[in-house]
């Protein structure tokens, strides 16, 4: 079998990994030169770690999913590497932790590939995943272990470890949604709508799931004050529901429910209203709530077309520059060229992910690939849109780029699942 699957995706991957390593290492050296006018002392260890981690992931793919797509891993590695360069440039202490989390992420990547040999294995445990997903989602609310950071209760602390269970929840829920919707898609489809059953009650059955997802999203919004995750979960579910059924009414209903939820929370919750107010007019709140987004805009504006140069800007002025607003830091030092490169990297990931979905051999695999791709694509859009004031700023991480262990590990697992689906469909068609 392995012989049949052409080695070309892996060869492509190896070439792209070399490119990603070159770009990242070059950026790392330039950032150090820009900041201190000297070569980084630890460029050797840096090179070994980045080459080592990507090489390990690459070799694991050769063994565990040889026919899988060859673009996703190098693109993720590039995003991870650029993110690391900026984290190291902003905060030396976080850089070491991010390197460690990257290692954990790669380990989780390999473990996922090793454990999930066939995507359909996941389908069997759908209700387990549902339970785990909801559990992870609500975990921060549990007394004793839940932690509130920057006003949002989305952290859990167990012993010395803190993590954001929401990052994992989105993957687990994508798996659950995929298996659930595949099972029910006929039932929820429009062609199944009986001609005579036009009463509200009859329709309720079709709109039950979306209402449930809406309610759960509102719970996350209200109880955890996490606007970003709330939007992400609801968007994910509506997208998957529509892709599964093809019924446009679900999109309309999703939009309507979103509108109602937005209007309600705008009226009822100060933190939501504040986000919207700041989005519409940050200028009159320049030294208070508007400070963060204005610093992001000032940073990107100062960067202009080509940026100030690595290590030569002032991205430390942007609050949360290592995490949620890292995109603005990139915009300041690498300019429009850098931000568009990041945009293209995510667009490539989305494109590859959806191509995997189209080629997947079962409906479950198709829908799961759609869900996983939507998670990454939507999350990146939410935070980049927020940083550029296209959308209100919602606190989610930029996948692979932002500092954060939970986010990195979860995204590497997500990547492994996409590659697993890709491998299985490639083998099937081979």
């Amino acid at each position, binding site marked *: 079998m392995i012989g049949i699957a052409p080695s070309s995706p892996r060869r492509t991957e190896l070439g792209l990994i070399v490119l990603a390593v070159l770009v990242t290492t070059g950026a790392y050296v330039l950032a150090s030169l820009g900041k201190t006018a000297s070569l980084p002392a630890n460029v050797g260890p840096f090179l070994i770690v980045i080459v080592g981690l990507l090489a390990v992931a690459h070799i694991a793919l050769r063994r565990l999913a040889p026919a899988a797509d060859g673009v996703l891993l190098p693109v993720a590695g590039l995003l991870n590497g650029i993110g690391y360069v900026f984290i190291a440039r902003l905060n030396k202490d976080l850089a070491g932790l991010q390197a460690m989390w990257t290692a954990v992420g790669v380990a989780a990547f390999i473990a996922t590939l090793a454990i999930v040999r066939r995507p359909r294995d996941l389908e069997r445990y759908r209700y387990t995943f549902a339970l785990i997903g909801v559990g992870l989602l609500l975990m921060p609310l549990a007394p004793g272990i839940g932690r509130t950071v920057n006003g949002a209760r989305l952290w859990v602390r167990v012993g010395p470890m803190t993590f954001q269970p929401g990052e994992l929840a989105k993957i687990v829920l994508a798996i659950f949604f995929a298996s659930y919707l595949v099972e029910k898609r006929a039932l929820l489809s429009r062609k199944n709508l009986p001609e005579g059953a036009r009463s509200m009650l009859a329709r309720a059955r079709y709109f039950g799931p979306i209402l449930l997802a809406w309610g759960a999203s509102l719970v996350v919004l209200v109880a955890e004050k996490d606007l970003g995750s709330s939007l992400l979960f609801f968007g994910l579910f509506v997208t998957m529901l*529509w892709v599964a059924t093809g019924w446009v009414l679900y999109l309309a209903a999703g939009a309507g429910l979103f509108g109602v939820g937005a209007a309600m929370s705008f009226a009822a919750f100060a933190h939501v209203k504040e986000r919207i107010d700041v989005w519409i007019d940050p200028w009159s709140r320049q030294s208070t709530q508007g400070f963060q987004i*204005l610093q992001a805009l000032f940073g990107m504006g100062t960067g202009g077309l080509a940026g100030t140069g690595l290590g030569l800007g002032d991205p430390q002025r942007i609050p949360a520059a290592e995490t949620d607003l890292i995109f603005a830091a990139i915009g300041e030092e690498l*300019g429009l060229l850098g931000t568009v490169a990041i*945009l293209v990297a995510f667009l490539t990931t989305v494109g590859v992910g*959806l191509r995997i979905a189209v080629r997947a051999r079962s409906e479950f695999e198709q829908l799961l690939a*759609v869900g996983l791709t939507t998670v990454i694509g939507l999350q990146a859009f939410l935070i980049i849109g927020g940083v*550029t004031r296209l959308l209100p700023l919602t606190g989610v991480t930029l996948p692979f780029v932002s500092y954060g262990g939970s986010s990195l590990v979860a995204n590497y697992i997500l990547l492994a699942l996409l590659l697993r689906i890709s491998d299985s469909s490639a083998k099937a068609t081979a």
Partner: protein
Amino acid sequence: MTRQIKILAIALMVLYSAVFLKLNQIQVVQAHDLAHDPRNSRVATRDFARPRGVIQTADGIVVAQSTPTDDQLKRLRQYPAGPLYAPVTGYFSFTFGAAGIERDYTDYLSGRNLGSSVKHLSDVFSDKERTGNVTLTIRDAVQRVAAQQLGNRRGAVVAIDPTTGGLIALVNFPTFDPNPLAGHDQKAVRDAWNALEADPAKPRLPRAYREIYAPGSTFKLVTASAALERKPELATKSYPFLRQLDLPHTNNDLPNFGGSSCGGVMPQLLKVSCNTGFAQMGLDLGTDALLGEAEDYGFGSRPPLDLAPGSVASRFPDSSGWLRDDPALAQSAIGQNDVAATPLQMALIAAAIANHGVLMKPHAMGEIRDDEGDVIRRYLPTSWRKPITADVADQLTQMMIGVVQGGTATGLALPGIKVAGKTGTAQTTGKNAHAWIVGFAPADAPKIAVAVIVESQPGLGDVTGGRIAAPIARAVIQAALNAP
């Protein structure tokens, strides 16, 4: 399902395109505005934290320098002479920007327009940055004498090299210490600024070139110039001896100070600063001639001056409503009514007479050198105006020598040196008057022209200018001629 996936791909593509457009808006269309937004302190901090050259006097005294600090702003700007050079160097403040030499030559001081410093490959990555050092035309020896002489009396001293326009001394009182404005604790900086703003004496105002005063009898030099240039017959006209001039269209009279009687031809009128004679001369000249002459000397224009925010214009009153022989014309001819001039402008009048009728552009920068000592810019003297002919200038010079030798400006006399001068007293309120003097020396080959004003001194009469302002100007001239 494939159809939906393709639509989803397009939808995500549209979302990312929207982000792409928004990024172009931020990083291209609005980039300049965002980068230079006053609330964006990035550019300001970087500029402020740059190395900055020194400002030194022509005789080598450093009056502004930067010393390294540990904080984000990296370097502290210091003014070793405190308030003495404030109207020249100005200040360099993170919160309040800059003024004076600090603002006019900031691109040189910070090295921003010194070009690339890549002389060796290692320079590409070195953080060594070039700076420019500004050498002033001001001479510390003269500046100190001027400040000491003026003391704690409100007023100003402007000394200028008539042949180049280079300022030799520029002092005013009250003044301010620029050091607190350059501090890094911006709350303390704001407090210091607010204290200066609240002070009714306006210490931050460089009154030598940004305040206008009635010039009194020093303006008679303009009236005399107008007669010599425009109606030469008036230069030889003998004016009747009067105690007071009966002003037309009014019951008021224009008296001589102290009720003394004076008259005669122009040199005699100037020597004793005869009000009745010059007022009548003004009426004889007419509005157009007097206004035209004042404008030729620079009234109504802002003199070019490299001390940001620059000089204000001196003023000849609005004559649009005047009659042909309006009383206001008579008063203006002796520097009263609404005539008002900066001390700088009055120094420029003396300088123009000293320089054979050519008025040179005033300036404080002599040359700028890079940190390796190479001259990168040297001030090239240029003329600003030519108010009078060389011949008229020589005639005025002779008359002004007479004023020092036997007139109201004897206080300006120096042994062995011919000094030319003219006093002025401009009544302000009640028995108080601004005491003025303008002059230059040596009269046959002038090296320094000077204007002094001491505000609101008790006592009227031209003796006031001679008594109070002349000793200051005399000491300044002496200091300038002694120390080369």
